[in-house]
């Protein structure tokens, strides 16, 4: 069978994952019904890389968590960009292939300040709410077991119910991925009444997912991520990318932006695909700030370039 890349190019349209509702920061819908968010920007970037622009070349298919793997296999979507953690069972048993992580988030616990708790161990005997759909509950269970405390874990299907339950004091603690947790605190009536405990329950590295056994398609994903970080590293933004192309400061950057051929040919893309990508969505920093940093005031922390003390690094562009 031909690879997914050819199928997509032939179709002239990329089918990318959305959400059934909203996932704060990663897949939201604006007042006019357009998708936005970090995951969505990656989809748009991918479409721009493939076709030059995301205008009319991309369909966001809203799917639920449970649907994502079969949807990929049945061809409803071409790729899963849906903040999905990289675990061994998924990787090995479900015939999925992960790119390097593009977002690393810690799970934290937020607690009511008046309980006087300072760490998760102080929640002994209390209850902790988590939302279903990710690997959170498993990590939380393991973490609590390690601490040797007893706590009731209550799992909710949706993010807003879990928050309501916490604010109604059904639970003493609320466990979420750092971004939504920060959002929950920031949008509450009285942010000072809640403390985010320092414990990191677990670190979940999330990558882009494609079906196993399609290395060319996987390559496109990996190099798209590299391009975003490479651009950030070299200060290329969506605003100044034209200047960079007109006067590439280095041969490497010239090749990167398609001034000299090669960067695209090897992948089966146009040579200026990285230019299109940056032009469309900007570099990683722009994407992050636009979707997470500004609206939710969440510092980049681990999700920074290695040069800034983070975990991310571009592969070698040559």
């Amino acid at each position, binding site marked *: 069978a031909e690879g997914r890349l050819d199928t997509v190019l032939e179709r002239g349209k990329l089918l990318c994952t959305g959400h059934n509702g909203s996932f704060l920061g990663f897949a939201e819908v604006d007042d006019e019904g357009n998708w936005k968010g970090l995951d969505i920007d990656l989809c748009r970037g991918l479409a721009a890389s493939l076709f030059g622009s995301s205008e009319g070349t991309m369909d966001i298919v809203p799917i639920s968590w449970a649907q994502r793997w079969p949807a990929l296999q049945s061809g409803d979507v071409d790729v899963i960009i849906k903040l999905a953690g990289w675990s061994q069972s998924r990787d090995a048993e479900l015939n999925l292939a992960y790119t390097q992580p593009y977002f690393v988030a810690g799970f934290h616990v937020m607690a009511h300040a008046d309980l006087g708790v300072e760490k998760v161990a102080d929640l002994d005997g209390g209850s902790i709410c988590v939302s279903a759909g990710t690997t959170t509950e498993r990590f939380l269970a393991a973490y609590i077991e390690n601490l040797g405390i007893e706590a009731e874990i209550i799992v909710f299907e949706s993010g807003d119910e879990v928050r309501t339950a916490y604010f109604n004091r059904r639970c003493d603690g609320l466990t979420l991925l750092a971004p939504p947790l920060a959002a929950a605190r920031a949008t509450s009536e009285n942010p000072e009444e809640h403390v985010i405990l320092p414990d990191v329950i677990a670190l979940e590295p999330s990558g882009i997912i494609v079906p*196993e056994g399609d290395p060319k398609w996987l390559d496109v994903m990996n190099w798209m991520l590299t391009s975003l970080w490479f651009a950030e590293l070299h200060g290329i933004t969506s605003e100044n990318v034209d200047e960079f192309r007109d006067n590439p400061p280095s041969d490497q950057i010239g090749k990167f932006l398609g001034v000299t051929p090669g960067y695209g040919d090897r992948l089966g893309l146009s040579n200026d695909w990285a230019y299109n990508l940056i032009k469309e969505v900007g570099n990683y920093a722009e994407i992050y700030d636009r979707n997470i940093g500004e609206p939710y005031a969440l510092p980049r922390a681990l999700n920074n370039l290695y040069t800034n003390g983070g975990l991310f690094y571009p592969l070698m562009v040559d």
Partner: protein
Amino acid sequence: MMTLLKQRSFRDLAYQAGFVGTLIAMVVTFAVTAAVNLDAQGMTSGFGFLQRSTGWGVSFSLIPFDTSDTYLRVIWVGLLNSMFLGAISLTLATFIGVGIAIMRVSGNRMAGLIGTVYVEIFRNLPLLLQLFFWYAILTSLPQPRQAIDIAGVAFISGRGTYLPGLNVTGTSAFLCAVATCAAIALAIWLNTARRFAHMSTGRKRASRQALWGGLVLLIVVLMLAGRIPETPLLNVPYLKGLNFRDGIRISPELLACIIAISIYGGAYIGEIVRAGFNAVGKGQSEAGQALGLRPWQIFSRIRLPLAIRAVMPTLINQYVWLFKATTIGIAIGFVDFFFVISTSINQSGQTLELIAILMGGFLAINYSMAWVLNRVNDAIRLKGTQLRG
């Protein structure tokens, strides 16, 4: 040939063969296509993951469960929880529904009005919303430290209702429940069965006393046998840390599910039973009146039995549907069958297999429920056809 085609008996045979044949052909086509397609996708299906440990826990379980138990067991936990919730809610919904139907046909304007308002509100608002509402009310009860204290042994709080319990093993508690149900069934049989009709009143009373006495004795024996050693017999909840320990706990999630489903189901069942009352001609109740029966006797002996018979098939439809409403528990974190399947899908990713298990589970429960109720329906169906008006 032509005449053969016109023969009714031949046609009947041909129709049946055609119908069943088409169905079989469809199923075979599906199976073959599926095999080909799945093979092409390199998708392996298998139920091996059921033997793996889950690594996550559940907040409510009727049988012991911890994070090292297998997927198979967690699915079993979910199934039991669903049946538990279903049994309680369906029973309550039936009582509420019959009550509402009675109010609506009672002829008392005020009662009728209340019944109508009840149906229009609770039938027409989405169940999910009602569930959120009851859950919000239950969780906004006081915190454990300020819990409503009933005589120092029972507590009501936003974290649940705590009742004193006994320190006995689950098995013996279960056996006690079974024994009680059996005794009740026996008592009903004793009261209604023909073969005891001619028993003298004295002998009847004696056998009734023997029945209940035996039950009490059996329960005491079971409790003592199943005692967990080195614990006091009575298990009183007490406050420790952020919450109560010990005792029997009814979590707000369970309670909210029970309240929401019974109230919601009551509205639908009420409508159906009302239709049943309307279908029963007033001749029968007039005959009861003419015989001097009291209103309550007419209701319990004549109107209700006839109304239930008139709507039994629709009622079965509704029960089957209502049981499926328990899946709503996932929204507020009640660990039911659907919840564990959904979580397992997220955790293991074995979507298709788990959906198949989900369907199998509901099929088993609902099909058997419908089957039993259909047998009941057949058993109580009005005999003979020569009925008038």
